[in-house]
């Protein structure tokens, strides 16, 4: 359950970037740190990456994705990071207000002193690379197929062609083979591998899965479910090589054709996006152009190793905590002056503690209702009276004043806030 409405640091997304940011923010001294995650568990994409290959850089160990994530989840819990799961952030304003929604917590509005964007990325789709043909079931991005297989425990298909030699595609080739599916072919339009060489060796070579460079899918057949794909070789300009066409019968086409940072929220918040990376422009502290909004991980640019994302997340979390603490210090240097009983408003709204020196401070106020008898204007800190002044009457049309003098300053300095009341004597 969410307890407070103002957090020091709110982190959107709980992948390695978000988790590291949360841990670092806490360690840097931020008190109230909240992670909002739209999935039902913390961990981000790592949860569906049940293969090894994580942690070599940071832990010098070869861990599966969920175990890698668990280390940070445990640390975050120990440090007292709060989380809201199954909750999606729908809007972030430049003033660092967030609107989020879930079944459990309802529709909530949250204020943050600093925000870390850690929404990760999404996969490029069939339409983005414009593969012609029919639009049947059985065309999946590799990540969606990975989720079906590893999280839902269901097979997305039996005879598979994979387009793109990105890491997720290579890993899925092996994964589906383990499960008894037949991976017919992996196709890559470029003349070289787009994923890691170790993945090529461990996922394709070891399983005799053929990989063809400079090949692509030309047409998808099948009305209801994929029935076949027509493939072809391409030349340097990506034109089909005549006569190279081949039809491969299959029921599934997986796409591993690139990732795009997920920045719809960032844009709403006024964060400037680099058209080359698709992610926010950030400085070395990982701050975006919007003060107090930081970003780390695949939301900034696509990483090949989760370990690097973790390190970027640390930076962002630390910077966000610093920003939030500085803001908080500034906020706490100011004592709010509140309109109390029968007071419409008081100016000034706050008093800066640093200015409690020799000068007097005049409070100017108006009442809500007229009182046609002697009144008392009183300033208190919620419990103790700090100053008071009498007046013959109080009328909304006539401004009242009360001057705080040096002798009041010691009490003022101790107060969390001041309240002004105007009552009949």
């Amino acid at each position, binding site marked *: 359950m969410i307890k407070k409405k103002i957090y020091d640091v709110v982190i959107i997304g709980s992948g390695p970037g978000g988790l590291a940011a949360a841990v670092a923010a806490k360690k840097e001294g931020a008190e109230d740190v909240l992670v909002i995650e739209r999935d039902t568990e913390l961990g981000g994409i790592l949860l569906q990456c*049940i293969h090894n290959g994580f942690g070599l850089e940071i832990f010098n160990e070869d861990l599966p994705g969920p175990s890698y994530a668990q280390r940070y989840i445990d640390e975050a819990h120990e440090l007292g990071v709060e989380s809201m799961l199954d909750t999606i952030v729908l809007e972030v304003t430049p003033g660092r207000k967030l609107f989020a*929604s879930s079944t459990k917590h309802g529709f909530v509005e949250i204020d943050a002193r600093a925000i870390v964007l850690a929404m990760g990325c999404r996969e490029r*789709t069939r339409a983005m690379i414009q593969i012609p043909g029919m639009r049947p079931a059985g065309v999946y*991005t590799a990540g*969606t197929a990975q989720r*079906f297989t590893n999280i839902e425990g*269901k097979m997305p298909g039996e005879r598979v062609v994979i387009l793109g030699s990105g890491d997720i595609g290579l890993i899925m080739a092996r994964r589906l083979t383990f499960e008894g599916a037949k991976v017919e072919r992996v196709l890559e339009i470029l003349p070289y591998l787009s994923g890691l060489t170790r993945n090529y060796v461990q996922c394709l070579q070891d399983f005799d899965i053929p990989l063809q460079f400079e090949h692509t899918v*030309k047409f998808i057949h099948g009305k*209801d479910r994929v029935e076949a794909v027509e493939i072809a070789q391409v030349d340097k300009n990506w034109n089909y090589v005549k006569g190279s066409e081949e039809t491969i019968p299959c*029921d599934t086409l997986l796409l591993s054709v690139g990732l795009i940072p997920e920045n719809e929220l960032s844009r709403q918040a006024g964060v400037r996006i680099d058209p080359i990376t698709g992610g926010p422009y950030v400085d070395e502290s990982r701050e975006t152009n919007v003060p107090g909004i930081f970003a780390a991980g695949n939301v900034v640019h696509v990483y090949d190793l989760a370990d690097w994302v973790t390190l970027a997340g640390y930076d962002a979390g630390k910077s966000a905590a610093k920003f939030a603490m500085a803001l908080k210090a500034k906020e706490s240097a100011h004592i709010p002056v509140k309109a109390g009983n029968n007071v419409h408003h008081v100016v000034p709204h706050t008093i800066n503690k640093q200015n409690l020196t020799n000068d007097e401070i005049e409070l100017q106020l108006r009442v809500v209702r007229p009182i046609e008898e002697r009144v008392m204007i009183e300033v208190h800190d919620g419990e103790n009276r700090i100053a008071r002044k009498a007046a013959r009457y109080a009328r909304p049309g006539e401004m009242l004043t009360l001057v705080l003098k040096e002798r009041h300053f010691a009490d003022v300095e101790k107060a969390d806030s001041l309240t002004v009341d105007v009552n009949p004597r």
Partner: protein
Amino acid sequence: MQEKYDYIVIGAGVVGCIIARTLSRYEGKVLLIDKEADICMGTTAANTAIVHAGYDPLPNTLKARMNVEGNPLWDTLAGELNFPFERRGDFVVAVGEDELPALETLMGYAKKNGVPGCQILSGPEVRRREKNITPDVSGALWASTGGICDPFAVTVAAAENAVMNGVVLKLNTEFQDFIMEGDRIIGIKTNQGDFISRWVINSAGLFSDFVMHQAGVRPEFKISPRKGEYFVFDRADVQIDNVLFPVPSDKGKGVLVTTTLHGNTILGPNANIIDDKEDTSTTEAGMNEIWAEANKLVPSLTKKYVIATFAGLRPMGNGPCKTPGVDYNQDYIIEIPEEVKGFVNLGGIESPGLTSAPAIAQEVVDLLKDAGEEFKVKKDYEPIRPARPRFREMSQKDRKLLVDMDPRYGRVICRCENVTEGEIIAEIHAPIPAITYDAIKRRTWLGTGRCQGGFDTPRVVDILARELGVSPLEITKRGKGSEFLTRPTKKVEK
């Protein structure tokens, strides 16, 4: 026991559904059938979604009359059925001096067809109204009564209202043949058994030729599918809010640059005659053609922001125009033929068939009246079909109220289009239950954004399985044969 009806409507596209809804106003039993797993899976599922003003069809054709009679009926239809509809107006854009005379021709058609609100604009005026248009624009015809709609929403709303008013809908039910008694049709044979009826109405779209031939009507009539392909853009990156036609050619109205009601810019359609009525594939040649054509109107487009492509088939017929002296062989057929009794025959309802649908339905009722049918309005006829909440379109304040009332609306399942679990559940249990992924997609617009269902698909499969009480393995994209999943994995290593 055979089921007996007064009217059977074959085909639940926009035309069949609005006919069924119009008939549901009156006493009498109506059956609406479609061979697919959901309504609106034919031509109505893939078109440009424009409610045409009526300056395009050749004057004195039935097409022209249906268009011009149909257009003004949309305001009431949208009001009663609670679907979104906007009269944005549209432009026919002339590029270069050569194309200017075409505008005069259309203006002449507009006058003859009786289309209000048309005007010829100068090149600079067109540029002022739409800054993305090519600097070579020489002028445009502006038609203020042009509108845009969401054809799925229209069809679903009409069918739902029909069902509310007693129409029986049977899906996965394929018409195969007529049951005759002499020269009178007394029912139909389908893959789900026989149904008896006094009247059968043919609104089978691409397959209307097959249906009429089974009745022995117009053996020479032939539907030639004419494919139209489209590009859809991410609305965050490309926003052209106007409806821009090129000047028409012998291939029809040409490739538009236009917008959907949801704010996505779309390009298309081209027009190529093909053989296979099921071939809704996109083609490389077609996509190149559209791109080249659209860039003539708006040169600043870039392929980087394309999020979807699709194609639809126009049911182009060869029906002769009945008006003496008009030489036109692609007119609509809307008739009660003489050679058989009990048959209302529609054919060749291509564009502007969506626009015309409410007028076509009225025409069908009028023909039936002429044939001696009596129409008595039902006492309990309910013309209003209530809308269901759409989270995406709400203010943050209204969202909060909705989620407070029913927390299931708080869980967002489609991250791009912001469609919630509450909305999906409501559609699964609606008067016409949405039980496939595509059925939910069409009703809620889930999965139509930039990630194209990558995020929501596993979640929707889960929700459908849970709500329908079946295994996720049985959940389909568009009906039997389009299952998403094949079997459980051996074991889940976690």
